């Protein structure tokens, strides 16, 4: 493939490679050390011969701001530059192989870094987690952890809550998103209206949890209510409600936070799908005497079925793993536990990897059908076959 006659000579490429690896190694050591920036500055001073300044740094250190700044710069240089330099230098090395080997080796230079990380961060842990869930704390492989997950009342509560989350959260987001997409299609300033619904997508679940904790904030009756919902109840002469502490109401209140976050996603996809329906189809239906609701129900809805399924599946997967919202607001107390929070508790607080792994496998089992459909679709498209 390469027609270049003057191939780069070997040793500069090798030297560049060695230099890159060394520099990356030093950068990483500096990031990991407690006094990395101090040592770096000290050594720079020594290198230029300013030993008095070097001693001063060694004795008094740097101000936290300077130290942090240096750390940031080193982190960005190592993290961003390092990966590019590695590709550049390795490709420099490959350039000097003969064209025959080059053609065999180059694809692997391109895919190996990604594949290695995928293998270490996703493939190996998945297999290992299944193994741990079967063997941890046992003499031989057993289903003990699964049995305990499926018999322990707190675990069952988490599973049940997760199911409620999936049903209510997914349908809620899709229906409101669809309704808003259809309504906004009919008004001027559609883009502006959509931005309001869309914006929560940029907000973290932790941030959203704090926002809604404030909305539902509760104080005993008699004190001024500063959460808007209880303020409203107060204005109506009702007693305030401690929304996060009353099951099963609290789970629904938390689900509402997720719906608030995810509706924008559903709206964007479904809005594009609605606009994709050919005009003549809608016109024909109207000429046949269908009213707007009938047009929506008979033409638009069937036309965007595929998009609805896509959106539903995507939100389903997000909600299945819900963690932050519950963790920040109730921490799983007051009967609001879900699988991912329970798993974190088992892993970090109770140091029980076996049960934590069994819970993770429960989540995996729920997405396996989706995984199979995806890969099958891929095969049908003949991608990469």
């Amino acid at each position, binding site marked *: 493939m*390469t027609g*270049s006659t003057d191939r780069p000579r070997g040793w500069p490429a090798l030297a560049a490679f060695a230099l890159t690896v060394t520099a990356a190694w030093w950068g990483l050591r500096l990031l990991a050390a407690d006094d990395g920036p101090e040592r770096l500055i000290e050594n720079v001073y020594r290198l230029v011969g300013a030993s008095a300044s070097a001693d001063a740094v060694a004795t008094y250190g740097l101000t936290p701001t300077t130290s*942090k700044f240096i750390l940031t710069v080193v982190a960005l240089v190592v993290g*961003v530059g390092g*990966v590019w330099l590695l590709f550049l230098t390795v490709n420099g090395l490959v350039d000097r192989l003969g064209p025959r080997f080059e053609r065999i080796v*180059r694809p692997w230079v*391109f*895919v190996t*870094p*990604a*594949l290695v990380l995928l293998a270490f*961060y*996703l493939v190996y*842990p*998945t297999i*290992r987690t299944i193994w*741990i869930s079967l063997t941890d704390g046992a003499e031989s492989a057993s289903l003990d952890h699964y049995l305990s997950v499926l018999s322990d009342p707190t675990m069952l509560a988490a599973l049940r809550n997760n199911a409620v989350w999936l049903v209510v959260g997914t349908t809620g987001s899709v229906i409101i998103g669809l309704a808003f997409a259809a*309504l906004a299609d*009919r008004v001027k300033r*559609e883009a502006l*209206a959509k*931005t309001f*619904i869309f*914006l*929560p*997508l*940029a907000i*973290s679940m*932790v*941030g959203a949890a*704090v*926002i809604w*904790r*404030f909305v539902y904030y509760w104080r005993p009756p008699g004190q001024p209510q*500063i959460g*808007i919902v209880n303020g409203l109840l107060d204005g109506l002469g009702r007693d305030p409600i401690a929304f996060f502490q009353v099951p099963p109401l609290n789970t629904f209140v938390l689900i509402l936070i997720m719906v608030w976050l995810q*509706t924008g996603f559903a709206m*964007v*996809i479904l809005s*594009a799908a609605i*606009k*994709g329906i050919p*005009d003549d189809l809608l016109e024909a239906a109207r000429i046949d005497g269908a009213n*707007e609701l009938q047009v929506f129900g008979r033409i638009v809805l069937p036309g965007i079925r595929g*998009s609805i399924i896509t959106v539903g599946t995507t939100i389903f997967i*997000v909600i299945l*793993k819900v963690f932050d919202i519950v963790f*920040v607001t109730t921490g799983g107390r007051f009967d609001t536990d879900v699988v*991912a929070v329970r*798993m974190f508790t088992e*892993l970090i607080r109770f140091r029980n*990897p076996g049960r*934590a792994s069994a819970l*993770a496998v429960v989540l*995996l089992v729920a*997405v396996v059908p989706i995984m199979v459909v*995806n*890969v099958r679709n*891929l095969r049908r498209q003949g*991608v990469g076959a």
Partner: protein
Amino acid sequence: MTVVATRKTRSAPVGNKPLSGRSLAIVRLAVVLIAAMWSFPTAGLLISSLRSANDINSTGWWTTLVHPFETTWTLANYTEVLEASGMLNAFVNSLIVTIPATVIPITLAAFAAYAFAWMRFPGRGLLFAVVVGLLVVPIQMTLVPLLQAYNQTGLTGTFLGIWLAHTGFGLPLAIYLLYNYISQLPRDLFESAFIDGASHFTAFIRLVLPLSMPALAAFAIFQFLWVWNDLLVALVFLGTDSRVAILTARLNELVGSRGQDWHLLTAGAFVTMVVPVIVFLGLQRHFVRGLLAGSVKG
């Protein structure tokens, strides 16, 4: 996940039959009501973060809408939360974590996606199918073994450790999105480049990267928002030590330790939100394009 067919989009309401006066009024009202419902929680947060602690505790934030001059407006909450509560430090940590954790996966994925799309090597189809299968693996599946491995190698609590973790978790989506884009580039383009003597590496750098900017931008926004807003991965692999803790972890701690101090919580929450919201509003077009190319992550 599955690619949403983006057919020819019709320009806004042209194809719609104009609604009668009353229906249009109802539709407008519904749109305004839902938009208002979606905005008031954030509005309450923003308004409260600018009021004095005393005022927040004595009257609801909505009273300022009617009597805007009867409350003390102040930036003191922000000063306090940034300095005393360590949010500024956490903000810098968030940057240190997020920028490499966005650039590294894009780089690795772009190379890999190019190879999957335009290079021939044994096992290509199978490996790509594995990547697509990994798209939906829940992160929870990886936590137990990775935490064990991290503790053994000393990667826990290091920036390198969290960059690599976010890279690994982000790669399937990155490769998938970039593959969809790069594989659709016209074949002639490459052929003429190769005839001119370009290697795959030069073709990648000179042709594919510049042409793939829309897809790269879309994924960059996803990954940036995802890493910046993540709590779980940060809690497990980075921890809450102030040397490394990021904004979300810090805010979560603030909820635990100062759960009733709304002047701190509102300002703190807003500090965590400001960067993603700016990125989001500024690059909304690219973000929407990325969403329409279809995606979830595991």
